[in-house]
């Protein structure tokens, strides 16, 4: 090692410049990270592949400003220098730096870091008078030259830079390294990569414009770090996350506390940030620091219902009590993502600015401010949905600056809107890459997949000893759970088995498929399609426990006492199974009911053999039902378990109105299967928690806060019921009693409100949570996890690995690989929770999208289908919230319009707008006009007309208009398809979309061109909604994830209240 010194000029803590001398050690051996290395470098981790045409070394400026281009996976053979790496760290902040780090870590990107400044021959010290940028560029160039020589000229090396002088200076030196500009590089080497060219132009333009900016300040400057730190410590400033009110995006935003900053007891609520000035350039989701305003400037939140769009007039009279109000003084962390935007109409665009290159675009998300982008394709981008990224927001600019990334498609088209929903929820589901598919085992006609003999001998073979069967929704492809039950020899013991697809056998930890599954975290179900977490060869074939084929499984086997059904022992491990029957729920229920039905697997058999098989199956099903009933009863006896049952029914109630397909009473066999799965999950949770008390992945459901139940209690009281919310059991019992015999909807709505009051179940790592918080409130279990659906949930994959490690630990074998520590696991749990939330949001939004598309082409005044019955479930200052059971949608109904007119009801129930006043009470709202008064009570039935409120830049929304205060006489229209309700709706919309696209294609005289991947993975060909919703409902059976859908909806309502 050679020691030199580096002189730096830094700012001291007091703001003075200081001269700092740092040591700098250099060595001869620095790993180069290329597989072409001739000098036996000790490369660890990622190496550059040898089969690329060249290596590219980007200059500091390129990495700093054009990182997004380097992030494209098509660009290969990138050598990042330490010089560039550190400059990014110093100049662009943590977020940018972390992106660079994850780029380097990600094995899907072909790039490495070369520590050039520690390599003796590639480092050059800064010369006297040399500017820092020049020095950096020289260092990068030297590194490129060293790299070229180090590989003995086997690979051409290209250095790209934005520095014109450097190009002319270094190209002349003739060292074998080509020095060109980024643009030339892209044109020369990647002429077909349009995405890169577009990105380059848009970023370059933005950079250029940022340079010649300079105007008066619109916002106050953010505070320097020292002042801030002291302020946060002393409690003068408060740190939190900014969330913007969707309905009043320009005016209202709230900051929620992070941590226990509430030294001030009066400040335990959120803090209101009123107006754009006080928000000071913060965007929804940013971590901000705020300062409270003096008390006389505090404001209240707005109570009235407002429409999502249109001008927002401040309504002073409808404000509530003043609440803590503050202003943003600094933004600690930007949480910017990709935003979908729409360009304004062309005429507007021309009047908008003098130079037509800068355009203000409107994001799809209401909570995001307009973004200024520069583009020359404004005309081409009309009526398209476009992705942009934010770059900066200077204090001199009213709007943030961004740049254009890519086009999604024409707005209003189904495909575009679905993509929009995915992007807005940060869901990234590209088709599986070739490298990932190459990892997959092959199973084709010619080359069938076979079991490995080593695996066969190491696993417990249940193929001959156990009767294994699966019960799933009809037409299900990815069967991840099967069941077995048998009487052990001697007759004193029963053996219950739950066998789950062994995904972890195929998906090795750290493989590309594993990484992809980890980043997706779950299979995404949208209204008409799904995006799988695992490639189809696994999810629908090799992992799927199909009937009649040998499969690997992970099993939990309980030995139960045949009489008392007490658990005597439990066994966990890897097994081999062959599922004998692939039943569906209806079939299983019919068998149990003793009806004559055909089991497809038994068809080829004849006579007595068939009868014998049949009776075997029947007996197994009956035993299973008995066991499940017992398990359930046992848990009921354990106390506080009843709510879970309620939840199930409440969920199914939800389901009913989504599908209108699920029978009124859920089949018992649903519960039987669910009960077995809950049991398996519970036992696995116990096992892994005992084996790994500090790093096991569990799932908990925190008890809800009592104040969230207020709405439920008040509403029930209005109808004469009392609801006891002290414990989950009391709540369940009182909900059970709150039934109005005349109107079954009342109970349903009350249950809905109860679900809304609950928080969500979440994954967590046992090391980061005290033991008393492991409790699952909804299921009333002390420990719970997810184990039974590894094909569509990544959490289950982790749990499988933990369980295997626990089993190995028991046998005193050391686990093959070190397990994730608590910190990593907790991060992963957060990631999965976030992705689950995104999955639910996107599902909800896609359902809303389909609702809007359904009503879009109907004339709401003539079409019978646009008039429906609705129930009032909450009262607001200028209207009420109503639920339409027929279509399963909720919305606001206004009783007062913009001109101040109110609804008046005449003799036969017809409604009109007339001048008058409104009075709101806790359980009713009264309209009084010259013709008389009318009262709307909670749970009243009314008739509404549904129409679509079209929106250019945002998602369309549905508008409910009151037309009568009488219940809508429910004539079941014959035009409704037999399935009715939502599924018919989805199918119809899909058909329209397909027809429309077909027509468009025909006009262009071309055949529809669907790529293979699309056919394979998007699966929009047969939108089997039934299957999909069954799967969701099963998910709901096991936890409360679905209630979040309604929950979030309700939250938006309450925020506006």
């Amino acid at each position: 090692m050679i020691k030199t010194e580096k002189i730096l000029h830094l700012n001291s803590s007091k703001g003075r410049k200081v001269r700092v001398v740092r040591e700098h050690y250099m060595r001869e051996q620095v790993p180069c990270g290329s597989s072409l290395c001739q000098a036996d470098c000790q490369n660890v981790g990622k190496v550059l592949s040898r089969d690329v045409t060249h290596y590219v070394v980007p200059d500091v400026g390129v990495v700093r400003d054009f990182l997004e281009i380097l992030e494209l996976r098509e660009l290969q053979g990138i050598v990042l220098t330490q010089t560039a790496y550190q400059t990014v760290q110093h100049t662009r902040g943590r977020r940018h730096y972390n992106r660079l780090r994850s780029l380097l870590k990600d094995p899907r990107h072909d790039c490495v870091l070369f520590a050039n400044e520690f390599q003796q021959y590639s480092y050059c010290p800064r010369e006297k008078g040399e500017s820092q940028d020049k020095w950096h560029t020289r260092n990068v160039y030297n590194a490129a030259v060293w790299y070229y020589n180090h590989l003995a000229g086997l690979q051409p090396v290209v250095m790209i830079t934005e520095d014109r002088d450097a190009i002319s200076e270094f190209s002349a030196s003739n060292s074998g390294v080509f020095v060109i500009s980024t643009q030339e590089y892209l044109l020369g080497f990647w002429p077909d990569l349009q995405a890169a060219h577009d990105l380059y132009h848009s970023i370059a333009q933005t950079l250029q414009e940022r340079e010649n900016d300079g105007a008066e300040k619109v916002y106050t400057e953010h505070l320097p770090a020292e002042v801030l730190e002291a302020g946060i410590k002393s409690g003068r400033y408060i740190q939190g996350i900014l969330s913007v009110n969707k309905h009043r995006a320009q005016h209202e935003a709230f900051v929620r506390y992070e941590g226990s900053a509430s030294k001030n007891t009066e400040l335990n609520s959120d803090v209101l940030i009123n107006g754009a000035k006080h928000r000071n350039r913060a965007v929804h989701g940013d971590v901000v620091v705020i300062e409270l305003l003096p008390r006389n400037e505090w404001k209240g939140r707005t109570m009235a219902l407002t429409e999502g769009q249109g001008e927002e007039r401040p309504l002073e009279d409808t404000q509530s009590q003043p609440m803590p109000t503050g202003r943003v003084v600094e933004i600690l962390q930007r949480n910017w993502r990709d935003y979908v935007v729409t360009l304004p109409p062309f005429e507007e665009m021309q009047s908008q600015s003098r130079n037509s290159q800068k355009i203000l675009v409107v994001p799809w998300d209401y909570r995001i401010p307009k973004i200024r982008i520069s583009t020359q394709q404004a005309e081409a981008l009309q009526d398209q949905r476009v992705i942009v990224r934010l770059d900066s927001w200077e204090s001199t600019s009213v709007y943030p600056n961004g740049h254009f990334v890519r086009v999604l498609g024409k707005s209003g088209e189904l495909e575009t809107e679905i993509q929009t929903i995915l992007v807005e929820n940060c869901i990234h589901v590209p088709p599986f890459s070739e490298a990932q598919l190459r990892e997959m085992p092959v199973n084709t006609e010619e080359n069938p997949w076979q079991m490995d003999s080593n695996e066969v001998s190491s696993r417990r073979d249940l193929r001959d000893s156990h009767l294994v069967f699966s019960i799933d929704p009809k037409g299900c492809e990815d069967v991840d759970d099967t069941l077995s039950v048998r009487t052990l020899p001697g007759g004193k013991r029963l053996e219950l088995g739950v066998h789950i697809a062994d995904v972890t056998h195929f998906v090795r930890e750290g493989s590309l498929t594993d990484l992809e599954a980890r980043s997706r975290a779950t299979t995404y179900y949208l209204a008409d399609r799904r995006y799988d977490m695992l490639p189809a060869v696994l999810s629908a074939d090799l992992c799927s426990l199909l009937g009649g084929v040998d499969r690997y499984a992970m099993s939990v086997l309980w030995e139960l006492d045949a009489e008392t059904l007490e658990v005597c022992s439990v066994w966990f491990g890897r097994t081999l199974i062959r599922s004998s029957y692939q039943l569906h729920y209806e079939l299983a229920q019919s068998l149990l009911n003793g009806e004559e039905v055909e089991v497809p697997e038994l068809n080829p058999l004849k006579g007595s053999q068939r009868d014998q098989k049949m009776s075997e199956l029947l007996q197994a099903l009956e035993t299973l039902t008995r066991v499940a009933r017992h398990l359930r009863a046992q848990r009921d006896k354990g106390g506080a378990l009843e709510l879970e049952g309620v939840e199930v029914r409440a969920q199914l109630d939800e389901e009913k109105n989504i599908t209108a397909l699920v029978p009124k009473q859920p089949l018992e066999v649903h519960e039987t299967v669910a009960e077995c799965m809950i049991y398996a999950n519970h036992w696995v949770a116990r096992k892994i928690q005992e084996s790994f008390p500090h790093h096991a992945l569990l799932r908990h459901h925190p008890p809800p806060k009592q104040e969230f139940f207020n709405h439920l209690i008040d509403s029930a009281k209005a109808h004469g019921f009392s609801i006891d919310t002290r414990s989950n059991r009391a709540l369940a019992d009182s909900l059970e009693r709150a039934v109005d015999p005349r109107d079954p909807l009342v109970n349903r709505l009350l249950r809905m409100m109860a679900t809304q009051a609950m928080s969500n179940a979440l994954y967590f790592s046992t090391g980061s949570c005290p033991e008393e918080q492991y409790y699952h409130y909804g299921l009333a279990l002390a420990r719970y996890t997810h184990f039974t659906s590894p094909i569509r949930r990544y959490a289950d994959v982790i749990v499988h690995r933990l369980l295997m490690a626990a089993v190995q630990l028991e046998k005193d074998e050391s686990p093959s690989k070190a397990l994730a520590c608590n910190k990593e696991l907790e991060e992963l749990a957060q990631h999965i929770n976030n992705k689950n939330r995104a999955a639910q949001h996107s599902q909800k939004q896609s359902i809303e999208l389909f609702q809007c598309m359904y009503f879009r082409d109907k004339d709401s005044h003539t079409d019978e289908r646009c008039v429906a019955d609705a129930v009032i479930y909450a009262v607001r200052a200028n209207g009420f919230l109503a639920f339409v059971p027929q279509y399963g949608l909720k919305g606001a109904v206004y009783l007062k319009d913009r001109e101040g007119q109110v609804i008046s009801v005449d003799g036969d129930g017809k409604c009109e707008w007339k001048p008058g006043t409104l009075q709101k009470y806790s359980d009713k709202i009264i309209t009084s006009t010259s013709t008389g008064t009318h009262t709307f009570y909670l749970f009243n039935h009314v008739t509404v007309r549904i129409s679509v409120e079209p929106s250019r830049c945002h998602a369309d929304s549905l508008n409910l208009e009151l037309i009568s205060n009488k219940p809508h006489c429910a004539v079941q229209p014959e035009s409704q398809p037999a399935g009715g309700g939502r599924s018919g709706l989805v199918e119809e919309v899909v058909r329209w979309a397909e027809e429309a696209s077909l027509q468009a294609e025909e006009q262009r005289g071309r055949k529809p061109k669907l790529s293979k991947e699309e056919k394979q993975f998007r699966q929009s060909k047969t939108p089997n909604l039934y299957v999909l919703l069954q799967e969701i409902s099963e998910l709901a059976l096991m936890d409360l994830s679905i209630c979040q859908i309604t929950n979030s909806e309700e939250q938006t309502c309450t925020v506006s209240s």
Partner: protein
Amino acid sequence: MAGLELLSDQGYRLDGRKATELRKVQARMSVFAQADGSAYLEQGNTKALAVVYGPHEIRGSRSKSLHDRAIINCQYSMATFSTAERKRRPHGDRKSSEMSLHLKQTFEAAVLTELYPRSQIDIYVKILQADGGNYSACVNAATLALVDAGIPMRDYVCACSAGFVEDTPLADLCHAEESGGGTALALALLPRSGNIALLQMDARLHQDHLDTLMEAAMTACKEFSKVLDSVVRQHLEEVSDLTRD
């Protein structure tokens, strides 16, 4: 600006060293003629000057004297120009007094004080340039000065600091690493016996990691002892060459 990354993913520290590598050490003995013993030591960019007087009669009040051994008096100070920003008070502040006390404890454990009852040994150490690891530089320099003064010791006293970043122990921290906010530990070792003369740590560290961290610090100390030994031997050769004539 993002916080400094003390240990990169490739395993390099800020100054290009690997986790276990030490800074470059250079030392000279007998730099002053007036004192009984003196030494100058550079440990990376940390430069320390140590001077030893004694053993001599107790100065000042006699009541301090011990009947069975010598007392050791240490004084630590930093030059005003030793840090990036000029220091106002070169000695006597809280930090220096603490450091003096630590040095005193260290050398009371190493010097055979019972050979000189009712007498006193003075050790003065001055940091000329501070770049992390001040304590260890002082101890190492003072050891050489004591050797130069001919005061019998049980063994060399070697000191080294070690830090803990991302589950990896780092040996011999520089200033940027010390101020980076991680855990730092200072250890003075008598390398041949493996006895610890002083161990000091202010920050929090999980109990499980203490052993690995101490192990790293002790290995580093043993490295230092080799360097110190070679310095002493070289000095001896030079001196004996001079006296032979």
